[in-house]
């Protein structure tokens, strides 16, 4: 192998691995079989939250193992699961107001603005800002800020106020989507048109065509440039 090898420490034990690997693939290169703590391997599912530290640095860092390349002197550990609390609710019975959060996630209001959650977030979300938006009842803002959350759980693991930010955030997005977001009027209109049978004649005509005629029609369809 031509690529440069780097020295990493997996749960304290030293390994030499190619420097172009991600943390996740480096763990596998070293012989670990990742059963929990990995998912899509594309940075979308949030399953591979990882905590690491660089040699001679006291700071614990957090990221997604599938999105972060190994570096020389990395101390690594993979998190299999975050056993965080999740409130069970019926979205149809909730109101889009601050009281809903006070009831379902009262710990959200223990936020002291330390910003540790934001520092831990691998998605670079301003986590504290959406927690604070909820404190003041601004559900729209919380939904917008937390939109890119992939529920990896690192914020909750680091929070000194023991808030489960990502579950609070998804509640904000659900409430916003169900009750607050403006409705798309054109979609409603088109659904009504469909229900009235606007396209039925067209569909019936197509159904009666031969396979050859269908192919011909498909080839000569209007295409966007």
């Amino acid at each position, binding site marked *: 192998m031509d690529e440069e090898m780097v020295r990493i420490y997996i749960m304290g034990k030293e390994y030499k691995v190619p420097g172009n690997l991600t943390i996740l693939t480096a763990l596998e290169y070293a012989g670990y079989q990742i059963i929990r703590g990995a998912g899509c391997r594309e940075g979308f599912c949030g399953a591979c939250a990882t905590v690491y530290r660089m040699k001679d640095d006291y700071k614990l860092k957090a990221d997604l193992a599938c999105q972060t390349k190994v570096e020389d002197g990395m101390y690594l550990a993979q998190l299999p699961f975050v056993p965080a609390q999740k409130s069970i609710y019926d979205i149809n019975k909730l109101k889009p107001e601050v009281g809903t959060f006070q009831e379902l996630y009262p710990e959200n209001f223990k936020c002291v603005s*330390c910003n540790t959650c934001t520092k831990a977030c691998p998605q670079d979300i301003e986590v504290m800002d959406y927690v604070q938006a909820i404190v003041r009842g601004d559900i729209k803002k919380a939904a917008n800020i937390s939109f890119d959350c992939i529920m990896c759980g690192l914020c909750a693991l680091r929070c000194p106020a023991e808030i489960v930010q990502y579950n609070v955030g998804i509640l904000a997005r659900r409430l916003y989507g169900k009750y607050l977001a403006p409705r798309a009027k054109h979609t409603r209109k088109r659904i009504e048109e469909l229900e009235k049978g606007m396209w039925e004649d067209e569909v019936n005509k197509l159904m009666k065509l031969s396979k050859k005629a269908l192919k011909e029609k498909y080839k000569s369809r209007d295409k966007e440039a």
Partner: protein
Amino acid sequence: MKEIIYYPGCTLKNTAKNFEDSAIACSEALDFKLHELKDWYCCGTVYSLTSDDLMHHIATVRNLLRVQEEGQERFTTLCSMCYNTLKRSSKRINENENDRETLNSFMDEEENNYEGKVDIIHYLQILRDEIGFDIIKEKVKRPLKNLKLAPYYGCLLLRPNEVAIDDPDSPSILEDLITAMGAEAVYFPFKNECCGAYETVAEVDLVVERAHNIIGNAKRNGADAILVSCPLCAFNLDNRQKEVLEKYPDFEGIPVLYFTQALALALGLDPDVCRFDLNYQPVEDLVRGIEQ
């Protein structure tokens, strides 16, 4: 027009929207623009008395830092609880370099260090010291004649001494405002009695007793309404009248207004800015009385 950075606090964005909307409208009518702080954080509601508990001052320091980053050295707020928490906390952090250093090193993701120079003043202090009650008197378009108001201070504007906006034992700032608005300030010895504050969550009966005493004192002295500057006082003296009535069936309710709602009426502003729909006790009769 003069401008000052304004810190709303969480309650003014929710149940006390009537406080915020009326205050913003008043300040514009008085040529004093409130410019909302960008990215503010909950003040923490209660000042932490534990000497080594710096964690509960971080929110304050971040707010002070945001003010500093806007190139200002002072800002204002309306809620008495926010005022008290931010003022006490900022005093401690401004006067204590070690605390400041510890917090600045904790907030290592911030671009700037907090330098310890930002101060907070209460909206009432702007009315008194920056605008002046004589000017307010000149700008009153609808004097609140024949209206008797009980000025309720509660605790947080006056205690402890080092953050008091007026004489803690014998304050007069609300009385002076009431007089400037053309109303009469009634003698009100219970004006700086505690309303029971957050005991309202766990000890409703305690708050009911206190509300009953305070409101009774105001009414015996002839008040038509009580003026407050704190959303929690407002809740305990206004909303809790429901429970007071349950316990004392001959109790007669009284409207409770934020001082900014009364000021908006006196300045001749559209009563809609007062959001009276958020007041618990009906105030329609009172407003009609003023308009006639």
